[in-house]
């Protein structure tokens, strides 16, 4: 039984960040920063309910997209049969536990098959399951270093190349990375930070009335989950429908030259590394505009997109302070 997304009190920024990623998975995920007990994990797990169905190649262990890229298996089938069957599958949230080993992440030789049948076969790992799904890492800043490297390696191009223990295998691994972290417990490497499309901050709610509301809902859910879910069914539907509509409209939204100019002007002033920030701001503004039921991107969309996508990119050095940059963004935003 999962606590419904729509019943989560407050934390609008976090909810928005997650929803935008459902609308446009290519935004590249979200990093949720905040203290413990602020509904971070609850929200990510609740997201499952809202996820849409996607087209995948039937029977593929890697959820290959019919439009490509294809895994080694699907390429083989395509070569032999000339065509591939398609089925619908619901998107999932795949979890990456902290103590995970390298071979579980990337996949490895299927030992059982090798012993029983004497044949070499690739046993997919978490990166395979995560293809076209959400990959969720709780306390991502505590992840072991060489595991982080592996994530970065396949996140870079959306492909997992495996060369281990005598097996060579290639499969697509395009995942939407969702991480939570409590900054007090250590930092995240800039290179990994940069891989998260968006970054949202959650703080515990101080308002007494709201806190009471949280308690009440939690108690209701715990004592009678079925009834609680029923009560929230309507709200859940509203969000689902909004997301579906936004997904349909996403590519109809025109991105005008002046929008690009504004984005680039802003990021140039901030002296950010690389192009990822530009791309993410562009896509986020588009998704925001789609969510708001509009046909073109306006200034508010851009401003909100900047707030969501820039916070974690300002620290250009592993240990640079980012306090002043916040003011700079505000100044720049009021300028445009």
């Amino acid at each position, binding site marked *: 039984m999962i606590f419904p997304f729509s019943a989560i009190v407050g934390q609008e920024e976090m909810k928005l960040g997650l929803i935008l990623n459902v609308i446009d998975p290519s935004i590249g995920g979200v990093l949720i920063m905040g203290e413990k007990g602020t509904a971070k994990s609850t929200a990510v797990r609740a997201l499952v309910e809202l996820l849409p169905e996607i087209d995948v190649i039937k029977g593929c262990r890697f959820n290959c997209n019919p439009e490509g890229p294809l895994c080694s298996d699907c390429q083989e089938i395509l070569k032999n049969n000339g065509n591939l069957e398609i089925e619908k599958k619901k998107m999932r949230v795949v979890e990456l536990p902290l103590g995970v*080993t*390298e*071979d579980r*992440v*990337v996949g*490895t*030789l299927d*030992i059982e098959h*090798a*012993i*029983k*049948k*004497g*044949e*070499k076969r690739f046993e997919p790992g978490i990166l395979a399951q995560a293809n076209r799904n959400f990959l969720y890492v709780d306390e991502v800043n505590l992840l*072991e*270093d*060489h595991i982080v*490297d*592996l994530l*970065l*390696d396949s996140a*870079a*191009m959306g492909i997992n*190349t*495996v*060369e*281990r*223990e*005598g097996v*060579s295998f290639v499969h697509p691994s395009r995942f939407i990375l969702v991480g939570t972290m409590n900054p007090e417990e*250590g*930092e995240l*490497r*800039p*290179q990994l930070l*940069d891989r998260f499309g968006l970054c949202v901050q959650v703080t515990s709610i101080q308002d007494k009335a709201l806190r009471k509301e949280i308690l009440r809902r939690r108690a209701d859910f715990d004592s009678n989950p079925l009834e609680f879910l029923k009560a929230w069914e309507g709200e859940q539907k509203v969000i689902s429908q909004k997301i579906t509509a936004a997904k349909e409209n996403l*590519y109809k939204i025109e*991105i005008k*030259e002046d929008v*690009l*100019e504004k984005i*680039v*002007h802003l*990021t*140039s002033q901030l002296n950010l*590394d*690389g*192009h*990822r*920030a*530009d*791309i993410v701001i*562009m896509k986020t503004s588009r998704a925001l505009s789609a969510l708001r039921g509009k046909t073109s991107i306006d200034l508010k969309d851009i401003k909100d997109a900047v707030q969501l996508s820039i916070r974690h990119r300002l620290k*250009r*050095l*592993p*240990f*640079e*302070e980012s306090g002043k940059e916040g003011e700079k963004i505000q100044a720049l935003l009021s300028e445009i």
Partner: protein
Amino acid sequence: MEFSEFVGHEEAKLSLILNAVDLRCGGVLFFGEKGSGKSTLVRLFKNLLPEEIPFIELPLNVTEDTLLGGIDIEATLKQGRRIIQKGILGRAHRGVVYIEDINLLSPEIISLIFEVKRRGENIIEREGFSLKEPSEFILIATMNPEEGALSPHILDNFGMCVLWEGLKEPSMKIEVLKRHLSGVSNLRNEEAISLDNNLKRQINSSRKRLKDMIIPSDTKEYIVQKCNENNIEGHRGEIFLLYGAIAYGAFCGDEVVSREHVDKVLPLVLTHRKRISKELEEKEEEWKENKRDRKEEGSKIDKESKKEMGESESFNGGDNFSKESNLKAFKPAEEIFNIGDTFKIKRLIFRKDRLPRNISGRRTRTRTKGKSGRYIKSLIHPENKDIAIDATIRASAPFQNLRGRKEMILIEDEDLRFKQREMRMGHLVIFCVDGSGSMGVQRRMVETKGAIQSLLMDCYQKRDRVSMIVFRKDRAEVLLPPTSSVELASRRLREIPAGGKTPLSAGLLESYKLIKNVSIKSPETRFLLILITDGRANHTMTQMSVIEELEKVLELLVKLPSTDIIVIDTEKKNNFLSTDFAQKIAFKLGADYYTIENIKSEILIEILQKKIPF
């Protein structure tokens, strides 16, 4: 998206094209910031290579047997005799191996790759077979210098190197965004495809004309001269410069390789080989110092007495001294100095000890406890009961027919192989910093802080934990308890003031206590104590004399287990007043001794200086 659509980065594109024309150009390393399209370009380039040239990607997860080759389980079982499966390096013969983020690759794997590369053949002696196969390949690799450096020795293996600077020009950035938009909607640009096809044809015809290219002796001389001018060690530079120039000449459609061709490829070939000569380095240093002094004194004078302003512009080396002493009079007793220039730290090496641990990091190799760490290779004799099943199956494979296998593989004791795992750990690095008044003299504190900041960068790359202790006036103080936040350490560093007496023994005692405390809580910790001082102790905690007290504390420190000590001497060495106290302390501690000048990485390659973004 196609290669021709890629916005900007003409130098990088050229380097790839030249390698496609002639593999003897020696590959290329892209050196630059994250998220700027390095790997995107390499992948687009893959399509430009002629089909007969293998292009093999080497992922970070590679294991030794797949890299070099080993027994093919399936084929061996079927045929009842050992069948060898080629490894990546064998498959890459006469082709390209592409490594993304090469600086994150495990050091063991890196050394294997370069060993094969140097020999040009892959020799395997293991699992009961021996194999020798040709393996000549070039490397194309990317790296982000923030995540750690490569040794110059490895850099030298790359024919070319490109400093990949992010596009800053807004119009170009807009172009990139537009390309991205069309890339997402899967629209293939007809025009770009035809451009790419033209480029492919041009590359192919250039390849054919390579052997007919004329190389005048003037051009050869010019190459040698250029390498000399740039202080290039060894002959690799000259060789790659020659092949690069030939490939470029052919690509331009010329028949004769000219000086212009050489000039064009010169930056590509020499960037990562250029060693700044000592002389030049010193000169630059001097110049920088002058400039800095002038600037800072200028601003100080500005604040303190406007009358002197006119003079500050015109002063030269001669009255430097009098100016210094003049200024000293204005100085308050305590001052917070800025962080000076940072630099690349020399590689600090520590002995591997026997204690098995479970700490992650990147500094020193350690034995691992249990089943953690990276599986490097399989061994016949176990270090622990960690069976390497893949290797065990491979070892048993040739005997299956003999043993009468039906379905299930039959494994016997002699087949058992065990995993050797590798792990690197971070240390707890304790900075014990002298904050006394003598550190403020001649702005030594500025340089010292620069050195500490540089060491902190090194700690970040090696994933160390850090702690900071400062001793000044009458006591020592733990400014920063052990933390993994190098950022926090950097902030504390900025705030360290200089002024007052030097309670050196108090600082050392505080360090001793810290190490003792931490090792009770986590006995696996390895410590690195970095003492940064000029050694001029002049304050005691007890009734003992300065020397007596100091010696007592030093004795305590020497006895600490799992602790390495480095002393960094901050005393200015080029004058007759130097005391070398710090050196004596280092000797007593059995510690490695450095001055701020010589802890800098000796081989200052220009790119490292330019690109490490402090």
